[in-house]
């Protein structure tokens, strides 16, 4: 199957949504599940296939458009399609419970969001990348405004504004690149990037940094992010956290290593990542709204990932990718579990949510929390220890100390939530978990434990991804159409 279907299928389903709606809500919801399932199975089918894979459309690259799947994007593809699958199952429950909502609108944009995100990580020329970037963006704006209340609309409009600013920067960057090199193919740009006048190249890098950094929620440009999370429904939060933000992050580092910016900008990105981590974790301490809190937590984790991914050392990067995967799963788990609670209590205030009584939810949430904190035997631990090990090998003790110290701050609020869940003195309200949610949450929790106790399952892919990211020779060859 051509890689193009990754884009075409969701778009097709998206366009067919009105017809599905006419066939009944079951078909509508089912279609989304079917789509995600197909995409996920398709991705699983790529596991073990010789990478990179290329799908070209009509003309051979570098002139034509092509999708390239290498180890790096395979990992993300797995995460994205899996998240999409889980979320589509969750939405089945969600719309059962909230039957009056505008389902079709959600599914249109949901499918398009998947298409856009996947497109961003597959496309091998910067202009197409921009198009997918915009698709993803527009879908996110609408999805975040899915709640047609004040907060929802506010988040939608804010996201729109920020998205537009980011787009402007990126468009300018692309324009400058095109002006300088005369191509939009990533392979060619990577090959000729060092030829650009250093001052212009700084400008290009900065614009790309601002554009993708703003979307990937880096520190001085992420003041909007918590508002978006607060206004959206929690499954969308899960998507933002484990798919959209990760897609921007993917592109950021893809370009970072393709253009070989590592030596020059490594420290800068690391410091920005560290500041993001620090500021977000401290800010999270002060939150009373659970969605905002986990928004900050997401920002913080992205900070760590930026720190670790920019190091250009295979150990650290591999650890960071492991951590990224684990974080995606954990955050998805947390947001979906919280979604159930928010639905029950009709509020996202921590104090109110703490009153729930459900052994299952307590356990899965605790697993999620512990995993994000990097506590064994959960998957977050392996990621964190790999990152720390990588830093240790490069003797970067400052980073180790920094990560560990800020992690304690992180622990404060995670364990405050845990303690609240365990607190016996609260007036408890029993929360029932439906069978669908039961299955998906169990699945996620089991995955967290599985990757924790048997990390080899995942390290194989993260190693592949690391290799592909740090040594993109094969990718370049394919992007230039050399071996075709």
């Amino acid at each position: 199957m051509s890689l193009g279907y990754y884009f075409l299928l969701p778009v097709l389903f998206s366009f067919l949504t009105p017809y599905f709606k006419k066939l009944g809500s079951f078909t509508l919801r089912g279609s989304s599940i079917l789509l995600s399932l197909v995409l996920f199975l398709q991705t699983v089918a790529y596991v073990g296939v010789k990478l990179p894979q290329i799908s070209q459309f009509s003309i051979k690259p570098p002139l034509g458009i092509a999708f390239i799947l290498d180890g790096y994007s395979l990992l993300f593809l797995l995460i994205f399609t899996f998240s999409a699958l889980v979320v589509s199952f969750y939405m089945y429950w969600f719309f059962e419970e909230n039957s009056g909502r505008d389902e079709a609108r959600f599914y249109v944009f949901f499918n398009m969001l998947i298409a856009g995100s996947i497109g961003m990580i597959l496309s091998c020329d910067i202009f197409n990348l921009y198009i997918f970037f915009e698709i993803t963006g527009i879908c996110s704006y609408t999805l975040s405004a899915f709640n047609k209340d004040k907060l929802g609309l506010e988040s939608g409009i804010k996201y729109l504004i920020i998205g537009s600013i980011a787009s402007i920067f990126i468009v300018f960057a692309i324009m400058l690149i095109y002006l300088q090199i005369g191509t939009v193919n990533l392979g060619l740009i990577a090959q000729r990037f060092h030829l650009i006048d250093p001052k212009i190249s700084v400008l290009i890098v900065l614009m790309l940094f601002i554009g993708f950094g703003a979307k990937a929620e880096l520190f001085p440009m992420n003041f909007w992010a918590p508002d978006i999370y607060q206004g959206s429904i929690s499954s969308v939060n899960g998507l933002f956290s484990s798919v959209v933000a990760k897609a921007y992050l993917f592109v950021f580092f893809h370009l970072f290593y393709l253009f070989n910016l590592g030596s020059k900008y490594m420290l800068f990105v690391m410091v920005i990542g560290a500041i993001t981590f620090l500021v977000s974790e401290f800010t999270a301490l002060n939150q009373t709204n659970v969605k905002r809190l986990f928004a900050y937590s997401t920002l913080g984790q992205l900070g760590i990932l930026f720190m670790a991914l920019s190091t250009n050392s295979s150990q650290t990067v591999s650890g960071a990718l492991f951590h990224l995967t684990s974080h995606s799963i954990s955050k998805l788990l947390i947001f979906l579990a919280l979604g159930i609670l928010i639905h029950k209590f009709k509020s996202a205030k921590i104090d109110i949510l703490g009153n729930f009584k459900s052994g299952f939810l307590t356990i899965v949430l605790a697993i999620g929390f512990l995993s994000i904190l990097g506590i064994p035997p959960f998957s977050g631990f392996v990621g964190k220890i790999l990152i720390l090990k990588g830093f240790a090998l490069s003797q970067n003790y400052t980073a180790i100390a920094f990560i560990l110290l800020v992690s304690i701050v992180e622990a404060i609020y995670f364990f405050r939530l845990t303690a609240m869940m365990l607190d016996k003195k609260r007036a408890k309200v029993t929360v029932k978990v439906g069978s669908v949610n039961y299955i998906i949450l169990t699945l996620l929790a089991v995955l967290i434990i599985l990757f924790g106790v048997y990390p080899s399952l995942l390290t194989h892919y993260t190693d592949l991804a690391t290799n592909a990211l740090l040594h993109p020779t094969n990718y370049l060859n394919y992007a230039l159409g050399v071996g075709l």
Partner: protein
Amino acid sequence: MNSIFLLLNLLPILFLYQFGGALHVSLPLTSEFTLSLIQTPLGTFFAYLSLISFLLVTIAQKSKKLACNYYVLQFLLSMAMLAIVLAGDFITFFIGWEIMTWSSYFLISKSNSIDIKSLQKYILFSLASAFSLIAGIVIAYSFAHSFDFSVISNSFKDMPFNIKVALIVLFSLSFFTKAGVIGLHYWVVDTYSKAPNLFSSILSAVMSKMGIYGLFLVYGNIVGYQELKMMFGTILNGTDFGYVLAWIGVATSIIATFKAITQDEVKRLLAYSSIAQLGYIIAVIGFGTTYGVAGAMYHTLIHTIIKLLLFINVAAIVAQTGKNRFSQLGGLIYRTPVSFVMLLIGIIGLAGMPPLGGFASKFMMYNAAIDTKFALILIGMLFSGAASFLYCYKLVYGIYLGHPTSKNLETTKEVPISYLIPQIILALLLVLAGTFPGAFIKIINPILVEFSLSTIPYSGLGVMNSAVGSFNGFFIMSAFVVFFVLILLLITRIKSKAKNNLNRFDISYCGEVPTQDTSLHFGFGFGTDLYRIKFVNAILKRSSSSFYESLATQTKKTSELFSRMYYGNIHNTMIIILLFFSTLFFIGVN
């Protein structure tokens, strides 16, 4: 449920026994990590210590209706500790350490008296300890390129001096936090006192020992006492390092002892006492001599026995009466006589009185201090020992002696047998440890060999040898018993008839007749004298809590400061982005 987990707890003991010191398992986790379990004499000692403690506590839990998940978590905890003490590499050690942290956290949260603040204290200190540990681990890794103990140990000598120091400090900090060295003990008291009553015994008796195990592991195995001596030089007959550590330990034990005396809550007293006793261990652990290690090891054993005994005893009394303060208890001696005797044996051990095991361990530690000529350290230990009599007496008086402070104490029944069985076993152990202290030499010698220190000569079960003297525990015990019986016979033969069981209000009270309402129990008044002693007052009125409270406040303020940035004004966000861009551009271009 209880019996199932009793059996489950028995299994690892049998398993360990079956292997008999030859356990060596390794399990590849990823291409980089291999989990390995190796049974060293040191690990085996601690493994038996923790497993048997868990077994005894599970017996005591028979009478409580506990949920399945409680037992599961407890079993997980015991397995985590087993992983810690049998670990052959730091990753296994750390995984065990963290599982221990969170499983105990969830167990503590099952208490009825726990509050969020105490839970937070516990978990944050535990995590700080764990993070300090992992920092040490990765730093060691950065030089040794392996997590394996033996590899790190071999490459330790070649590390730069500052890295060596950093490693020792990081590991020590981590384990000190677990053991509750003064200053890092902020979590200990609240946690021990608010945890489920029976679980407190595990916390104090076993979990704090994991810190001690870690110290042994690092000082003895990873770094090596010889290396410590070479790194830091010597003072008197010991190492500089040991001297500093000894002062930390002695300060811990003195301060905690005085704090213990002034507590009103039974378990808080026990918690402080636990800190103080661990202070002794830390004081001698760094000596780097045969007797220092042996003393620390023996005291570890004895303290485990004693604290299990005391906490189970107190748990039983709290379960039976529903009271947990000295000012609410009292006069239970003739209501719960067996419990009383058990507690009595416990405090005699705790005070380090001769016929019981507590003395043998103190003897060992004192002689170790003499051996290294750390005279002031020894005096500090003796001093804190003398002060500890006060809290020992408070413990037994406050609960069992004096007068019952409320009506229902007068009708209390003896505690359930399931509480008594472990206590009786422990008390017997304590008596045996005092009678046959020489038996311990046989246990400790392989460990000393492991640390490449000279061994202790063995001369009979009853004899405890040390560098500068020996005593015969068997003789002292038997002489004590013989004299006791003789004097008892003598006194009962004397005609002057003892009239028993007088009414408890029939006391010399200046001609007055006390009644039910008269406050006759002195449980609360203990330790008030101490506030008037300048030196002690200086200790008592200081507290580490103000430091940690202010740290918490600072964190909160920082958090508020940062969260002020996120107030959601999109215009400002845009402006900031543009400004950020232009600044970066300006910097980048120039």
